C-alpha cells in the first residue's frame, strides 16, 4: 500500500523554517511513498503553497530521501520552459524522484499577482492546463534519453543528432526548444493529478492521462488502473474504509489529509510494510513505463 501526504510551511513565520525541516524528517521516518509540496485546505483541496515548491523541492529532497517528492504549481501561470528546465535538474539531483502537480485551485491569488493578462474564463483553464503540460513535455522530449556521451578520450560530449528543436505550437504556448537541460532520468517527472482539481473547474476533465492520481472512490473508479497509481484521499474518519478499498483493489494507496496526517501515516506504515525500494528511478519502482519520445529519430542500427 502506497502512502501519500502533503507538507506545507506553517503560517507562524518565526518557527516556520525549523518546523518544516522537522516535519520533513518525521515524514521520511514514517516511510511515506509520496510527499506533495502543497497547501491542503480543511476541505481537502490542494493548492500551491506559500513557499514556491519548485525551488523548495531540491532542498527538501535531501531530508525526504526516499519518497517521490511532488511540486504543486499554478498550472495556468507557470511557463513551460522554466518548469521543464528546473524539474530536469531536480530529477537528476534526486536520481529520478520528482513529480509535478499542476493545479487550477488556488489560482485566484496568482491571477492578481501575475497580472490581468493571466485571468482566464473557466472554460479556458483546463485547455491551458493541458497545453502547459504538453509544451513542458515537448521540451523534455527535445533531448533523447541517451543523448549524453561524455567520452573524454574521443571528445564526444553528446550526440548532436539526439537533440533538436521541437517547435511546439499549442493554443496558449509556443516554444521552440531545444531545452538547455537534458531529458530527465524518468523521461518525464511523474505527472500527479488531483482529480477534484481539474474536474472541479468546469466539469470537463483533462485530456492527458496522469501517472499518479488522487481522488475519492467515485473519481478513482473512472480511472484506468493499468499504468496509473491511484491514491485514495482519506482523513482520520474515512481511514478504515480506505484501507478496505485498497485491499479490494479499488486503489493502490492512500493520500492522508487532516491535522493528524503524520500520525495516521506512521500508524498505517506499522500495519502495512513498505514495498522494497528497487529500480533506478521512482517511475521504475512504481512499474510505470518510460514515456515515448515522439520527436526521437532513431537511426536503425
Amino acid at each position: 500500500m502506497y502512502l501519500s501526504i502533503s507538507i506545507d510551511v506553517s503560517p507562524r513565520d518565526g518557527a516556520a523554517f525549523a518546523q518544516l525541516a522537522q516535519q520533513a524528517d518525521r515524514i521520511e521516518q514514517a516511510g511515506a511513498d509520496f510527499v506533495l509540496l502543497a497547501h491542503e485546505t480543511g476541505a481537502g483541496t490542494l493548492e500551491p503553497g506559500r513557499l514556491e515548491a519548485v525551488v523548495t523541492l531540491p532542498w527538501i529532497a535531501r531530508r525526504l530521501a526516499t519518497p517521490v517528492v511532488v511540486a504543486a504549481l499554478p498550472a495556468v501561470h507557470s511557463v513551460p520552459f522554466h518548469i521543464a528546465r528546473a524539474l530536469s535538474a531536480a530529477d537528476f539531483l534526486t536520481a529520478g524522484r520528482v513529480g509535478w502537480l499542476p493545479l487550477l485551485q488556488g489560482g485566484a491569488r496568482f491571477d492578481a499577482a501575475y497580472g490581468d493578462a493571466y485571468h482566464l474564463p473557466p472554460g479556458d483553464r483546463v485547455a491551458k492546463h493541458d497545453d502547459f503540460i504538453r509544451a513542458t513535455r515537448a521540451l523534455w522530449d527535445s533531448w533523447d534519453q541517451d543523448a549524453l556521451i561524455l567520452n573524454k578520450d574521443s571528445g564526444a560530449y553528446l550526440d548532436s543528432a539526439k537533440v533538436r528543436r521541437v517547435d511546439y505550437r499549442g493554443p496558449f504556448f509556443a516554444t521552440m526548444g531545444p531545452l538547455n537541460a537534458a531529458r530527465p532520468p524518468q523521461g518525464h517527472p511523474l505527472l500527479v493529478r488531483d482529480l477534484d482539481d481539474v474536474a472541479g473547474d468546469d466539469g470537463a476533465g483533462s485530456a492527458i492521462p496522469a501517472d499518479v492520481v488522487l481522488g475519492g472512490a467515485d473519481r478513482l473508479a473512472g480511472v484506468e488502473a493499468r499504468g496509473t497509481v491511484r491514491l485514495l484521499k482519506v482523513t482520520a474518519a474515512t481511514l478504515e474504509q480506505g484501507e478496505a478499498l485498497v485491499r479490494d483493489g479499488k486503489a493502490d494507496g492512500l493520500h492522508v489529509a487532516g491535522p493528524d496526517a503524520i500520525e495516521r501515516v506512521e500508524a498505517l506504515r506499522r500495519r502495512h510494510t513498505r514495498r522494497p525500494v528497487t529500480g533506478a528511478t521512482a517511475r521504475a519502482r512504481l512499474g510505470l513505463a518510460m514515456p515515448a519520445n515522439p520527436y526521437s529519430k532513431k537511426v536503425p542500427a
Partner: protein
Amino acid sequence: MSRENGRLHLWAFLQGIGFFPGGWREEKATPDAVFQRSYYERIARLVEDARFDAIVFGDQLQGRDAAGRTPGRLAIPTLDPFTLLAVMAGVTSRVGLVATVSTTYNEPAEVAAKFAALNFVSQGRAGWNIVTTVHPNSPWNFGEPELLEKSARYARAQAFVDAADAFWRQAAGLPAANAADALRNQWFDIAGTLDFPTSPQYRPVLVQAGQSPDGRNFAAQSAEAIFCPAPTIDAGRAYRDDIHERARALGRDPSKMLIMPGLAFILADTEEEAQRKHRHVLELADDQLCIEYLSESIGYDLTRLPANQPFPLDEICAACEFPAEDVRRMLTPAVEAGLSIADACRDYARKPRGHAIFVGTPEQMADRMETWIDAGACDGFTLQPGYMPSELELFCAHVTPLLQRRGLLRREYQGPTLRDHLAAGSPA
C-alpha cells in the same frame, strides 16, 4: 563589519565543468558528476570552508543550437541555477547563493516567489544576478518572435526589480511607499502580491553585470555587487571609478557596492607546471570543438564549412542568427589576417568571454590579487576555476590560507546572511 570581513571578497562562479571549453576532457575533471547531488554538496562545503562570500551560477534561456545544430563536443551542462543552489543550501549555513535570472522572459511574481523560497531554505543567503536576455533564439522559447529593443530591456529590468521588491516588502510587512506605482505601470498590471514566508535578509542581494552605458547606470542604481570583465588593473580601476561616479550621481554611497571582476585560473606548484597545464587544457579544445564554440557566438553552423578555408563572410552574415553587423565586425579581422576557420576559432576559444586568466603558483596568485586590491582596481574577484572540481580544490587548499595570513580574507564569517558578508549594510 567591513574590516572583519577582510579587504578582499571572493565569489565562486561554478558554471558547468569550469572556464575552459576543453576543460571537461581534463583527467581530473568530472563531467558526469555535475548531474549528481553529491558533487554540489561537496563543492558547496568546500567554498564555505574557504570563506567565500557566495557561489554564483549563470543562466541562459535557450539551448545551444546555432542554426538548429546542438554542438557535440562542447560541454553544456546548464542545470537550472535555483535547483543547484537549493541543494547547496541544504549542506551549508553561511555561504551566499546567487542565481542568475533574466527580467526579460519572466514575471515579477514568479521571480519574487522563487527568490523568497531560496532565501527561506537558505535562511537569508540568496542573491539575484539580474540579467536581461540578449540571445536571439531566447524569445522563440517563449512564443515571442523577437527580442525587446535594448533600452526597453533595461527599462523593463528596472521596473521588474521595483515590482519584485514590492512583493518582498509586502510579504515582510515592511513599508512599501511606491508599491502602487511599482505594480501598475507601462510594464506590469499587478493587482495583488503573494504572501511568502519571511526569512532573514528580506530580499536577495542584488547583483549586476552592466557593461554598456545603460547597463552601467542600471548597476549603479540597484546593485550591491557588480561583475565585470577586467583584463588589466587599469581597466579594473577605470570601471570601478566609472561605476562609483554614476552611483554618486544617483545619490548612492559607492562604498555600498562591491566591484568583482572575473578571474579564471590554473594553479600548480611551479610556474612551469601551471603553464604546461594551461597549454594542455587549450589543446584539449580541438578544432572541431573550437569551431562549435564560435558557431554558438554567432548563431551560424560553421561545422558545415571547410575548416581550412577563410570565413565566407557574406554567406555567414546573410544567414546568422545574431545581428549581422555584429558578426561581421567580429569576424572581419580574421578574414583580413587570412586566417582559416580552424585557426580563427582556435584563437577565439583560447580567451573565453574576455575575462582575465591567471596561470601560476598559489603564491603568485595571492600576490596578484593583493596588488589589484591595493591599486583600487576591485573589491575582490569572481573566480572561475579552469576546470572542476580540481582547480577549485587547489585554490581553497593553497590560496585561501595565504590570503587569510595576509589579513586580506576573513577567517570566520561575521554574520549569517549574504548581505552580512558584503558588509554592504541594510538596503534603504
